[in-house]
């Protein structure tokens, strides 16, 4: 998108970064940011909604566990360009074209971390809960899942950061957010637009990561100072 007011890149040259570009395009930047954040949240939320039941299922039998992990790993190996373009004809330019592949990529990270978290719950804790008369579903939601929360949030951090980066590829098929701007900058050979939105993507990833790290510290104060990964 050209900045308003008859301003062209040629008059100003085509610098890699320009403060003037940022101030004169603040509206476009804000709307792209909100689109990017929305797409990321939708993808990770869908991924989380799928990965909790998948992880719960994986814990039932060893063969289910390896099947689910292998499936997620194989899904993760599929190149993002192939996955996204494959859905273009199915969903046209609906946001699902981008959200579904990104949710699929977050699965492997989330399922692995949820499993790690659930495995950490000791048998004694579960026995104690059972002794208090809690049913199996209640034990899962009231005991196992809360204890697994630190590991799940650690997984969310990785998933959110990689999703923020992957949304950019969605720009190739007309997906929104910074991706649309990055590809627009590429097609119009605008160094400024391209570089600005790449820097914004990195900043957004760093901010999201810091916020989640803060959340992780707030909900697990006893872990402060311990290594988190």
């Amino acid at each position, binding site marked *: 998108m050209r900045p308003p007011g008859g301003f062209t890149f040629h008059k100003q040259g085509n610098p890699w970064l320009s403060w003037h570009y940022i101030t004169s395009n603040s509206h476009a930047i804000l709307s792209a940011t909100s689109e990017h954040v929305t797409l990321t949240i939708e993808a990770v939320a869908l991924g989380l909604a799928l990965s909790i039941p998948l992880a719960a299922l994986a814990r039932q039998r060893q063969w289910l566990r390896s099947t689910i992990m292998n499936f997620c790993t*194989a899904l993760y190996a599929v190149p993002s*360009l*192939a996955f996204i373009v494959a859905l273009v*004809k199915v969903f046209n330019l609906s946001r699902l074209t981008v959200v579904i592949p990104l949710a699929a990529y977050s699965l492997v990270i989330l399922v692995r971390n949820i499993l790690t978290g659930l495995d950490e719950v000791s048998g004694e804790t579960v026995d104690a809960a059972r002794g208090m008369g809690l049913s199996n579903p209640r034990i899962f939601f009231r005991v196992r899942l809360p204890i697994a929360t630190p590991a799940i949030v650690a997984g969310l951090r990785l998933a959110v950061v990689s999703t923020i980066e992957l949304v950019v590829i969605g720009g190739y098929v007309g997906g929104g957010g910074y991706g649309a701007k*990055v590809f627009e*900058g*590429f097609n119009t050979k605008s160094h400024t637009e391209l570089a600005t939105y790449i820097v914004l993507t990195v900043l957004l990833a760093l901010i999201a990561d810091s916020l989640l790290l803060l959340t992780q510290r707030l909900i697990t104060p006893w872990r402060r100072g311990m290594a988190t990964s």
Partner: protein
Amino acid sequence: MSSYLLPAVGVVSQRVNNSTWHQITTWFTTASTWAWHGENGEAGVAQLFWEHVWISGLSLLIATAIGIPLAVALTRWRRGGLVVTSVANAARSIPIVGVMLLLAVGPVGVGTESAIIPLVVFAIPPLLTNAYTGIRDVDPEMTDAATGMGMSRLQVTRRVELPLAIPLIATGVRLAAVQVWATATIAAIIGSGGLGQLIVVGYATQAYGEVYGGIIVVAVTAVALDMSLLRAQRGVRRRYGSLAPIEGS
């Protein structure tokens, strides 16, 4: 929101209609698809596959040649761990597509170089992290014993530390290889060739036989590479022992 509620199966059958299926089957059953030179003088799958192997292999080789010595050097330095985590975190948040597009419109220009530079740079973090952890976790008693036997610093690295770190180095190489293979697909957007070209050219010309054919070829080769490297890695671990769980990125 209503788009979320549409039953996926109905949408699929509606949008991917008979003519698309026909295009896909035609693409797969045409002999020239798989030849070195495809139809209309375009590159066939054989040539694109070779280009893909070449780009990925070269990038992985350069990244390994940089990453492993760098990991060794960083284990010698007190602040090395901080550098390794910073590099890994930075790489995770930089959009690699963006960097490729940037190099293509900027200093390097459209073509293979603009693809290989980011492929190398982004393959270094997994190699570096795993090699660093592998070498750092070598039991100090081992290196002490080797030094006591009169080995030089370089000999200790080459004959004790690196062999003991092999299982984790193998993990790093597998993760980097899978990532490079997948990302090399995206590089077709900036005209570097490789299997992604089927998707990019097909998409641009609305040739859906080529698009879906390309997607299947790209997905199958990527998953096959991942699975065979995982198998190879298990072999390495049986041979050299293990230091860490096999999953992990």
